[in-house]
């Protein structure tokens, strides 16, 4: 790992100032960034830890919306969202392993937008709003393809506001080595419709499966998915599965998520 200056601000304002500097990089839980730095694939000169900012931590509920501070570790979401948004809590409780969940944060996860990460599926399926150090971004605008987001240089996520669905479930099929999602599907049913977001499967990162949303809006049952085809032309083929296999998983897991959501 290349060396750097480590700083740990205590406010969003201070963090924003530090991240405006040359070569500065935000550090959240570090569970992805640090292995990358060990391989010398990232070389920030200043690393700005966001985990000391109290206003970026914790959960709050108001008017049907659950807001999660960006620096909230997965383990806290798993425990504290269990009553208000159980599907989100279950997703958080299935990321990595217990030690990873005590460090990794929602902000770090969605800012990185790993195509196999779990959180982007929840954010997109819930139609959440990503709140940053500069603005509010709708989930549909935030994710812009593999490892790419709407975040600008120096901008960082401060919280995520989730509209709480009537019913929801996340079903993940583990990549056997990394335990990231080989494919994961988050299904959320709202009064106004159904949103289905898929992670792990596409070369373009997390995406919504529009045909399934339309079918499920008419009938929120696994059977409603019968006959739907999944286009595998943009799906990932790697050691752990072909595009066709992932397309199959999208369909199978969506059905299982609908059944699990009840």
């Amino acid at each position, binding site marked *: *790992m290349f060396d750097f200056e480590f700083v740990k601000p205590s406010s969003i304002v201070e963090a924003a100032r530090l991240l405006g500097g040359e070569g500065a990089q935000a550090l959240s839980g570090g569970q992805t960034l640090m292995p990358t730095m060990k391989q010398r694939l990232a070389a920030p000169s200043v*690393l700005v*830890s966001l985990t000391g900012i109290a206003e970026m931590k914790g959960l709050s509920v108001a008017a049907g919306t659950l807001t999660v501070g960006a620096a909230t570790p997965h383990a806290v979401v798993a425990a504290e969202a269990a009553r208000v948004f159980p599907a989100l809590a279950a997703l958080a409780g299935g990321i990595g392993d217990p030690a990873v969940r005590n460090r990794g944060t929602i902000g770090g996860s969605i800012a990185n937008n790993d195509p196999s990460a779990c959180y982007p599926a929840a954010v997109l399926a819930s139609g959440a709003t990503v709140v940053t150090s500069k603005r509010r971004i709708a989930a549909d605008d935030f994710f812009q393809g593999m490892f790419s987001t709407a975040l600008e240089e120096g901008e960082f996520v401060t919280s995520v506001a989730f509209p709480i669905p009537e019913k929801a479930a996340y079903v993940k099929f583990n990549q056997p080595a990394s335990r990231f999602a080989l494919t994961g599907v988050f299904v959320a049913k709202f009064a106004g419709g159904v949103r289905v977001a898929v992670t792990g499967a596409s070369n373009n990162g997390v995406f919504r499966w529009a045909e399934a949303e339309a079918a499920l809006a008419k009938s929120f049952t696994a059977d409603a998915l019968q006959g739907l085809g999944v286009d595998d032309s943009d799906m990932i083929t790697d050691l752990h599965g072909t595009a066709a296999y992932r397309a199959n998983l999208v369909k199978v897991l969506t059905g299982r998520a609908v059944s699990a959501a009840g």
Partner: protein
Amino acid sequence: MTQVSMTVNGKPVSGEVEGRTLLVQFLREGLGLTGTHVGCDTSQCGACVVHVDGKPVKSCTVFAQDVAGSSVKTIEGMANADGSLGTLQQAFQDHHGLQCGFCTPGMVMSSAALLADNPNPTEAEVRHHLEGNICRCTGYHNIVKAVLTASGQPVAAE
């Protein structure tokens, strides 16, 4: 170099570190606490698990400066005050839950955290909880058995 201070196994400690110094390096090289091991470089194997403010973390994926001021517990702090093995450690010995011993400190620290949160885990919960700790020797059988026994529950397996 920056001065960093924290509490390790109940004792205040401090030392000089770089920005890139990992918690595990501070523990092993700075403090000579070599019970915490490094088995991988991708935050997967769990040999380096310690507790920071009561929660298990992978000390190879935490910068020392990021946990300044925290209370850290390592495998060296797990025995009883008189030096005898604690209940969980004793269960690992009684049930042959270790062979080469390299993953063992991480296994014990992870398992201790589980039992603190969930004093009566099911077999499935134990296995799920240990997903971030890799052992190549035991096939996990006796580790799971040791954790279940340490929780005071009867164990169905031989």
